[in-house]
């Protein structure tokens, strides 16, 4: 789950292009570490006179204390409220006056921030990022926390409570993971915990996690490498190093039964959600399940779309995707029924298609088609430097999860190496009937439409 500091206006994810199989994708970079521990990655691309400054802090909702769910994300909001040399409100005002856009987001594993700006404004972004890394607490007070608490509560209302089917995703983490697992609560947190967050929590969280040694700065775009290195050294030189951080040691994430749940919501059409736990990011089996999600629901020829929406026309839509994370990933399958169709009927057809993929390998061409679409996605990522999906963020993401910022080619190879028999083996191993959550979301008062165990 990824949630944002502010509404993404007109954000569209596009899969663009295709990389010829002989072609290697590589994003050349320079990397160094400052004496205070800050990891820095620089990549030069002079296509347009723009730069993206991208900062990752290696802390997310997974590091939260009991009774303080939602705190990492609330803290992300607070980071825009000023620091010792940046009065409240000025962070955004100064950036906008330089022609810059910025945003931040929080997941279970990490928090990231970016400023996309004209190349003449690099120093401004470095000043602001270093000031809030080094000198945040000097300017904060309880009022700042209260203000953003209200904003985040409204974010929760807008993104989950006032959105059809939105409340389901608030329930799923608790059903998927044991109580002491860091993924067993939501990133947005509960209303009670958001109310309980105190100024002291902010101080403790900042002191522990927002230190240079727990962060990584990636700068991509129209830069001069030597001058940018100097500028980074200058602006971050007075940021004090932090203390060592103890690693999270989560208990095993294993579902040992099938949990069946029924939720009522203000919706017209019932929806079935099936969720399984799958291997962590970049671990064996993870790429296979990304490909499986596409084989099942990517495009008109995908197995479930073709069956449920195109041929039988008993579903309005069907989606599958894998949410990949550090300690465990989740594989989501969701299908919305047409009027007069029960979720029991949908589940039966879905189960048949999953079973088929367990016993028979997919066709070679079918898998190749899916792989070609994934290859397209990779070149789309290198078209621009900024935002949540551009090169600057990707370099930081690869660095965090693999240790190698330019992991583009290795990542692509993970998908290319998967064979048709790997696919069936992965479906057998991970999409088990007796280790999953099956959730029926039905219109209020219509529990008879829920999926009943066959």
């Amino acid at each position, binding site marked *: 789950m990824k949630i944002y500091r502010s509404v993404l206006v007109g954000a569209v994810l596009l899969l663009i*292009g295709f990389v010829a199989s002989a072609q290697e994708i590589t994003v050349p970079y320079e990397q160094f570490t400052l004496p205070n521990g800050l990891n820095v990655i620089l990549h030069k691309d002079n296509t347009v006179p723009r730069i993206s400054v991208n900062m990752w802090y290696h802390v997310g909702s997974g590091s939260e204390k009991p009774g303080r769910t939602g705190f990492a994300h609330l803290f992300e909001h607070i980071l825009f409220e000023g620091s010792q040399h940046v009065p409240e*409100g000025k962070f955004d005002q100064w950036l906008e006056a330089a022609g810059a856009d910025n945003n931040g987001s929080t997941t279970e594993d990490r928090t990231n921030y970016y400023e996309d700006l004209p190349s003449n404004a690099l120093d401004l972004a470095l000043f602001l990022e270093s000031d809030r890394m080094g000198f945040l607490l000097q300017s904060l007070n309880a009022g700042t926390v209260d203000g953003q608490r209200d904003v985040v509560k409204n974010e929760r209302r807008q993104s989950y409570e006032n959105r*059809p089917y939105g409340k389901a995703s608030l329930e799923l983490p608790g059903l998927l993971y044991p109580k002491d697992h860091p993924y067993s609560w939501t990133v947005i947190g509960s209303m009670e915990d958001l109310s309980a967050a105190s100024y002291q929590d902010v101080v403790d969280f900042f002191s522990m996690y927002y230190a240079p040694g727990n962060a990584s700065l990636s700068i991509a775009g129209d830069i001069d490498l030597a001058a940018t290195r100097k500028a980074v050294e200058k602006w971050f030189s007075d940021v004090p190093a932090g203390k060592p951080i103890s690693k999270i040691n989560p208990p095993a994430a294993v579902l040992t039964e099938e949990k069946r749940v029924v939720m009522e919501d203000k919706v017209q059409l019932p929806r079935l959600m099936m969720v399984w736990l799958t291997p962590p990011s970049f671990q064996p089996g993870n790429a296979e399940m990304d490909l499986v999600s596409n084989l099942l629901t990517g495009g008109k020829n995908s197995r479930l779309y073709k069956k449920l929406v195109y041929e039988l026309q008993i579903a309005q839509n069907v989606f599958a995707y894998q949410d990949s994370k550090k300690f465990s990933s989740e594989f989501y399958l969701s299908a919305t029924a047409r009027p007069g169709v029960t979720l029991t009927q949908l589940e039966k057809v879905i189960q048949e298609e999953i079973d088929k993929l367990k016993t028979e390998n997919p066709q070679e061409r079918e898998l190749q088609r899916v792989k070609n679409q994934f290859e397209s996605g990779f070149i789309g990522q290198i078209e621009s*430097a900024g935002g949540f999906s551009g090169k600057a963020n990707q370099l930081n993401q690869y660095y965090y999860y693999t240790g190698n910022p330019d992991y583009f080619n290795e990542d692509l190879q993970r998908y290319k190496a998967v064979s048709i028999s790997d696919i069936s083996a992965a479906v057998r191993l991970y999409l088990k009937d007796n280790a999953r959550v099956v959730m029926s979301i039905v219109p209020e008062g219509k529990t008879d439409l829920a999926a009943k165990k066959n």
Partner: protein
Amino acid sequence: MKKLIIFCLLLASIAVTAQNPDRSTPPALAKAKNLQLPAIQKFTLSNGLPVVLMEKHSVPLVQVNLLIQTGSFDDPAGKEGLSSIAMDLLDEGAGDYTALQLADEIEFLGAQISSFSRSFTSEVDCSAPVSRLDGALKLMSTIVLKPSFADAELERLRKLRLNGLLQNYDEANVIAQRAFNSLLFSSSTPYGKFANEQSIRSYSKSDLESFHTRNFVTGNSTLIIVGDVTKESVTPLLEKYFSSYPAGAITNAAKPVPQQVKGRTIYVVDKPGAAQSVIRIGRIGTSRGDAEFNNIVVMNTILGGSFASRLNTNLREEHGYSYGAGSGFSFWTIPGPFTASSSVQTDVTGPALGEFFNEFKKMRSPLPEEDLNRGKNYDALGYAGNFETNSSIAAALADLVIYQLPDAYFNSYVEKALAVNKKGVEAAAKKYIVPDNMLIVVVGDRAKIEEGIRKLKLGKINFLSIEDVLGKKPQL
């Protein structure tokens, strides 16, 4: 000795600077680089189909968009949604390919082809690796020139759309937008109309064929190409696949100019149990060709067009009523709407509405220099961000065609935007932000918000049900 001492001091001062950056003021910035885009190349194919090309060789990709200057506002009365379903059906079978075969071929190439309609235009967009451009254009031209409009596919999409209508009854944002548009525009114009059960049930195969035959002609179309090709390399491919595109011209009916809002009226659409109220406030704005365009853009940036704008600062940062608030002008070929919007927590709906009007009033008072500079620079200096990807450049080139802007427009934009001054922005606010003449739509829990709205005494309050807005629920 003097010389040496100075030298040492210099070293020391450098070392000190490196140790302790000056944080007392934000760093002064060097002058921004000028935006200098590659040339816009214009030519026509042998059949007269116009082509607009911009080369971009940084990644081995090409974007090829066919722009058709007919959109949903041209749908015949009673056939609302026709252009949308017709465009959607283009790739549901064409030439010798079935719908499934087409999807398979396109995906196998790693290309993307999508076809859709907007309010004034329709498009078939293709993105492909330059090495697969021939194959991708072959499929694209088949879709464009020989759509099958098979009955079975029409019936399938018809059902999808009818069920989509049903889902709208839970979507507060959709309900708010539809209520706002249908109340803002007279029913004698197409601007407030939407596909409905009756119109969706009415489309016939011949409607689709007529839409296609009438609008897909050279005089109503432009090919827009951006990416890793040159005029020389791409022209033979375009001739190969698009020279049989029909020559011809059409004239779409003139679009009536919308009537301005008179007085202030509130419409509350009851959505019991809603956790938030969705707000839309607005009136008729202006057209893209308005000579004051840059002033209006900067004025709106200050009011509600960016994160640090006044509306977002007030409703989100100062009051905590909302996750975000903003405003925008839809610049059409004719005057389009100005809309301010937000989702606010139910129990503060009244006060939140009041804050919108406080900001509207404040916008009409003298403008502080700091706000002017921020708005102006955000627009001008951020402009280059529109030209990073092939698809965003293609969208900018489409604007050039639709609004008949000069070729020098992009490269001269920054200078023009930086020339915006206080007087111009203040005049734009006075002219377009008129709080006494506004339409207000709120979708929320009437029982909990009515009293708070009444207290504001903004104007007459009317109450609507969701079915008043969307019509009777379709029986499926």
